């Protein structure tokens, strides 16, 4: 049986966050970005690589990214960069994500009632 490559539904918005995070560090082209996601998450989060481009295009339409075709290593590629609006958006989303992760972690660790009780 093939492993299930579908990520859970609650990961909606995560590709956008990862893309913005990686592109804030340096401009990249699509393939490079996909490899960076794969390496950074150690393969935990897997997206169909073709599905990254629609996300990039939408972020560009929302003016969070810009793109430009440039020649790199003798090949013409579309390079994506984060705009100032994108940087601000990422800061806000990053902070919100960390708050949510912290809160969920608290609950999963037992929260105010200590260890989860077993039903009798």
């Amino acid at each position, binding site marked *: 049986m093939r492993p299930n490559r579908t990520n859970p539904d609650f990961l909606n918005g995560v590709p956008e966050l990862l893309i913005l995070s990686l592109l804030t560090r340096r401009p990249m082209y699509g393939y490079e970005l996909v490899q960076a996601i794969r390496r950074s998450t150690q393969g935990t989060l897997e997206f*169909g690589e*073709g599905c990254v*481009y629609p996300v990039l295009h939408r972020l560009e339409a929302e003016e969070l990214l810009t793109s430009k075709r440039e020649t790199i290593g003798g090949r013409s590629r579309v390079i994506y960069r984060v705009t100032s609006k994108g940087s601000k958006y990422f800061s806000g989303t990053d902070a919100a994500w960390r708050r949510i992760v912290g809160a969920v972690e608290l609950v999963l660790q037992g929260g105010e009632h200590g260890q989860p009780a077993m039903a009798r």
Partner: protein
Amino acid sequence: MANLPWLDEVLRCLAKHHLPVTYIQRFTEELSDHLEDFQEDLMDAKSDVVSRLGNPATVAQAAAVSYRQRSFLGRHPTALLLVFGVLPIVWMMILGLLSCFLVMMAMAGTDDFLQQLVLRDKTSPPGTFTLTAIRWSLSVFSVMIPAALVSMVHCRLAERLVLGRKWMAVCCFVLAILAVLPYWCVLVKTGPQGDYSLLVGVGVSIPGLFSGWHFSFSVLQVVQLLVPLAVGGWFWWRTRAASNHAVVAAR
């Protein structure tokens, strides 16, 4: 170019979603670049294109969803029902009533226009051609033109936002139902005064129910029904043709 069958399949799937040609071209160019990189950099010998890049249908679906999410309507599907199911009725009624009022004002304001036009003298009955012309004028200006305009605007909106042809169909069917309802009658009394009155009705009329009423149900109401459907059909054909063009252009 890398892996043409996979890219061709993506292209075919993209065309089914009626995305704009420029977007399809751009997307497939980037996928082609990606495939070339992928084939140059085969780290995992067992990897195949579908398992790495995704199923063509899924990739195309993701592109369509992502493209739709650029617009407010694409992000709020419930608003679509309001915009394509309810708003056309409101526009149609406003435009129709306004046009009807203007046509009547124009008739009334031209020095007893109807009196002179309909009754050539006060004792003879009006000419059938004249009555038909009046009914057709009212129908064209108050129903057909507003229905055509509203359906064109909404179909164009659905086309631009890549909302799918079903919303074009919803809008045009709603307008067709609304357009078939109004009917026009000129009630003529051929008495000594030779007076007349114009009756605007809503509903399905039954020809010959009342004597002296000149109904135009059989022709006018059918034409009124067909106008928005024809506009919808034209847009339907247009998006289909554009999709075929997109496949050819992107190749």
